[in-house]
């Protein structure tokens, strides 16, 4: 008969504590413990909170007058502080060139880091934690945001088939099927209200999708697409979040997915200038990294040839006007005949949905358990 072991070394104690903490995370019990009260605020509320915080940080000085505004134009990385709104310049290095072996760590390294260190305002020194470059300090966590509603957007539909495979597979059918499976999976978690921009084969403009997300006050927006490449031998996975284009290839993909956007050219320019808030950018990049990591790692476990093109910024219309973390996932390549054959299998589409769910869950878990410096004491 077993009895309690008396010989417990330090590694064992640490390991047992680790098991206990991991199980707390799995059951979501840490979610109830937080230094900032209940996490039942929406992304929309954040705008107000962020504004208050920005005001506190910068005071009512002239710098605020010159830089803070809802539509401050932003240029890609290294923009002047005055052009970046109240939170300062975005140091957003271009994601590393695609490699076949990118992993989660490298993807997270690509997540934009907000550099406040250049600020000369002495008042900022009192807010070193909030303004830290340490990417563990996330405004979403600081403000106790929680995801309640998730909108999944199956790309294309109706008279817009999207990409076409050599065997006759249409992108719109694959995106709808994977999105439905993803919806069911996320719904089973029981914590989220999961909606879809379309649940059948119907035409829907990009503007219509944006309106849908806004009307339903979504907290996360995930657009599902299948890639189409000139080189039919390639199979790649990539995930985009809204931002200025980084190269001609991302522009090509954006142009492809922005067809029939429903916005006029003038509006598009305004959209490009209206790049989202700090939180949206931070969280979109993290969500993109989590999905991309899971999708690539899992697909690679049974397809050695798949390539990881990582997370990228691109000016997709459908991502621009949704004021919450939003990503566009290119789950596969329809121009690759082998991949097309696999996509025709329901089991494979179920796997893709499962991999996406894993990534989204990882992102949402991190939202719950992000370790702020003070919270570490709770361990």
């Amino acid at each position, binding site marked *: 008969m077993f009895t309690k072991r008396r010989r417990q070394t330090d590694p064992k104690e640490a390991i*047992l504590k680790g098991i*206990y903490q991991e199980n707390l995370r*799995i*059951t979501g019990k840490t979610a109830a413990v937080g230094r900032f009260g209940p996490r039942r605020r929406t992304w929309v509320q954040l705008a107000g909170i962020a504004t208050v915080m920005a005001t506190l940080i910068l005071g009512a000085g002239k710098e605020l007058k010159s830089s803070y505004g809802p539509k401050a134009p932003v240029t890609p990385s290294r923009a002047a502080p005055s052009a970046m709104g109240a939170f300062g310049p975005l140091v957003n290095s271009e994601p590393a060139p695609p490699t076949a072996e990118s992993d989660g760590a490298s993807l997270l390294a690509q997540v934009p880091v907000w550099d406040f260190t250049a600020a000369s305002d002495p008042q900022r020194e009192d807010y070193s934690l909030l303004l830290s470059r340490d990417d563990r300090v996330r405004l979403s966590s600081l403000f106790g945001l929680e995801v309640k509603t998730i909108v999944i957007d199956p790309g294309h539909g109706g008279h817009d088939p999207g990409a076409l495979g050599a065997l006759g597979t249409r992108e719109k059918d694959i995106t709808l099927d994977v999105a439905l499976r993803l919806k069911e999976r996320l719904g089973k978690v029981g914590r989220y209200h999961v909606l879809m921009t379309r649940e059948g084969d119907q035409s829907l403009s990009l503007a219509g999708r944006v309106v849908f997300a806004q009307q339903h006050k979504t907290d996360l927006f995930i657009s599902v697409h299948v890639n189409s490449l000139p080189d039919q031998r390639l199979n790649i996975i990539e995930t985009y979040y809204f931002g200025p284009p980084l190269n001609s290839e991302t522009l090509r993909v954006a142009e492809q997915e922005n067809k029939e956007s429903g916005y006029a050219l003038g509006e598009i320019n305004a959209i490009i200038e209206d790049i989202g808030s700090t939180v949206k950018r931070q969280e979109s990049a993290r969500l993109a990294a989590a999905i991309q990591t899971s999708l690539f790692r899992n697909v690679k*476990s049974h397809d050695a040839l798949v390539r990881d093109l990582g997370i990228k910024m691109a000016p997709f219309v459908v991502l621009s006007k949704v004021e919450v973390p939003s990503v566009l996932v290119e789950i596969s390549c329809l121009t690759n005949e082998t991949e097309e054959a696999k996509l025709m299998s329901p089991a494979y589409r179920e796997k893709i949905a499962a991999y996406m769910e894993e990534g989204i869950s990882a992102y949402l878990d991190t939202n719950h358990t992000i370790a702020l410096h003070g919270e570490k004491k709770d361990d």
Partner: protein
Amino acid sequence: MTEKQEILNVGIDLGTSRSAIAASNGRRNWLESFVGWPKDFVARKVLGKPVLFGEEALENRLALDIYRPLERGVLKEGSERSAAAVRELIRHLIETAKGENGYTQTRAIVGVPAESFKVNKLAIINLVADFADTIMVVSEPFSVAYGLNALTNAMVIDIGAGTMDFCIMRGTMPAEEDQRTILTAGDYIDTLLETMLRERYPHADFTLNMVRRFKEQYSFVGEPPEPVIVELPVTGKPTRHDITQEMRRACESILPGMVETILELIAGFDPEFQKKVRNNVILAGGGSQIRGLRAYLEGVLREYGPCQVQVAADPLFGGADGALAMAVDMPDEYWEKK
């Protein structure tokens, strides 16, 4: 009886092919992960039980709605019946561990695949919750490592039916990057072997279940220890067939992914300690019984320096015993009541 003695700790290895339980009262049990319900009231009366498990379920499968509810070590998706089958399986295992004894509290630790999705871990916790007072889940190779006390500078490879799980131990709780799960495991060999046999012997009549048993009896990599001759019915007549080459090719199909993952995990270890890890590779699970596997891996790893690969003494109960050891060692304050 003191309060402490009224607590029953159990470790459960919920496997795709076999499930095992080890309890702090000394009871151990395993069964094939099959659950069957009688198809109708006639079958119910003939069989005399509302639900059958393992070998007994397989033997009576024609009269049963039979389920193998775990796929790659996790709950099959989209089937309420599969969830019900896992619940029955867990109930059966825990009841056999309890026996006739009454316990005021049952604490369970359940092994799941290393990279199991969080929702699956939660689903398992919810299912076990009906039969235990407090539950935790851990990764399967990690529970094996804990049971073997291989907590530092070691790599455990748990070769199951649905998954092959790797865990590298650094003396701490293994992080995500210390664990891998690949899907080329026992079931993969079975399917491949079945395909190859159907191609070579199109007139032979056999099932996947028969192929699985051939594998369990004759699996090997490298040079064959002896010809593998099995009896397969051809138009009803038992006929001897040589399946040596098919067995070898099917078993060796898991090696490339296995070696790649081993090397990748070792390469991620502190360079000063890589030699120690190479000398402390432990094979566990049913797949560890493949003949020639240990020698093959040592041959491959030797190219990188001295190495030693060991096979866990008890492949069937390694996971359950490790989970039980954790449950016994776990401080009381970490067990939260529901």
